[in-house]
């Protein structure tokens, strides 16, 4: 079966935009999910970023490394939304639960729950008790594996400041982890040293 040659293909702006953005979409969603902690909020954030970026198609075409640039854009949109939400007197409640909302110890622990699952619950709980800057830093660096240099580009914060913030965030995280009673009990029973 032969394909009839058409006139030279001329892509529409939408086709070009989708061609450029599609490879980054899931990666951006993942970052958005780490920042928001909620699936719908993450999808909405990616949507918002795409809506903001479409008019900047010409600029996007000239960018050599899109991933770090897109991460930065998404981060800024997220921070803008965060600031707006803080100013808003209304609490917006999503229809999906945040992964960070379950408090370890509030639910029955089935016998087959593994040590790593308990640790996972405990970490998810502890992360919510960091302040916003600390949580984002832990998410970017320790969860998603961004280097400090990459985070510096995303956040426009000096490297030294980032490093000391990260150290404080980790210290706070460990402090909260030690305070989570169910895991502390578990540790005592098992005779495992706290982390």
């Amino acid at each position, binding site marked *: 079966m032969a394909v009839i040659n058409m006139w030279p293909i001329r892509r*529409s702006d939408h086709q070009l935009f989708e061609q450029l953005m599609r490879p980054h979409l899931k990666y951006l969603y993942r970052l958005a999910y780490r920042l928001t902690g909620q699936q719908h909020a993450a999808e909405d954030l990616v949507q918002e970023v795409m809506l903001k970026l*479409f008019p900047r198609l010409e600029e996007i075409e000239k960018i050599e490394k899109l991933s770090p640039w897109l991460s930065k854009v998404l981060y800024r949109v997220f921070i803008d939304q965060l600031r707006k939400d803080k100013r808003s007197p209304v609490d917006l409640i999503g229809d999906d639960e945040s992964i960070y909302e379950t408090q370890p110890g509030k639910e029955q622990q089935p016998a087959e729950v593994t040590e790593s699952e308990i640790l*996972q619950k405990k970490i*998810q709980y502890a992360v919510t008790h960091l302040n916003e800057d600390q949580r984002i830093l832990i998410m970017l660096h320790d969860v998603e594996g961004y280097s400090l240099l990459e985070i510096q580009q995303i956040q426009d914060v000096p490297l030294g400041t980032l490093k000391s913030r990260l150290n404080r965030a*980790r210290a706070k995280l460990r402090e909260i982890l030690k305070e989570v009673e169910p895991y502390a009990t578990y540790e005592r029973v098992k005779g495992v040293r706290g*982390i």
Partner: protein
Amino acid sequence: MKMNCSETRVRLDDYYDDELSVLEFRAVNEHLASCDECKHELQAVDALRQALRDMPVAEVDDEFENRIFGEVRKHYSGASSSRFAAGFMTAMAAGLALWFATSIFIPQLPVDDASQVVMVALNDAYEVRLKFDAPVDLEQVTLSIDLPDNIELEGYADRKELTWQTQLKQGQNILALPLKAVAIGEGELVAQLFYGDKSRSFRVILKTTGNDALIYQVRKFNSV
């Protein structure tokens, strides 16, 4: 450079991230080689980092990308929010394609003129494929496409008529037209093929109905 336990422990995260200077790295290494307590602390760093990396991410569904780009198209294309546009777009996402068979230069072959109804939704493109059967290789064939007012060819929003020269291979030849509806209505897409003093044309009716059904219908061939 020698380090005690407290000097080592404040550097364990950086050691884990490979962010120490060479001298510090060596000193921490030396200390760890002889201190089980600090070695245990390093294992705890590893366990915590592993658990952090294992934090789950809720998976998006298969329509996530289409949803995102669909909204962008809708937002930046006023006309594309019509029901007609809606039709074309989802159909392509669903991988549907209509095939209109023709038998140019072989009049005895039947023409596929069956009507088809395709249910479609908002914000996608639709690809109509025209199939031409040629008895032999043909050079210097002229193809022309006329589009109704409510239809655009993706990337050619400014053109309603397109004419170009091409060649056909013996057997089946496929012309894929990425179409996009830009207004509610009904119109005819006319494809014409010219070779020497012969020509063939066919028409595709494109329209929407009140319940979002998009109807494609091929009219009989007309010799010109």
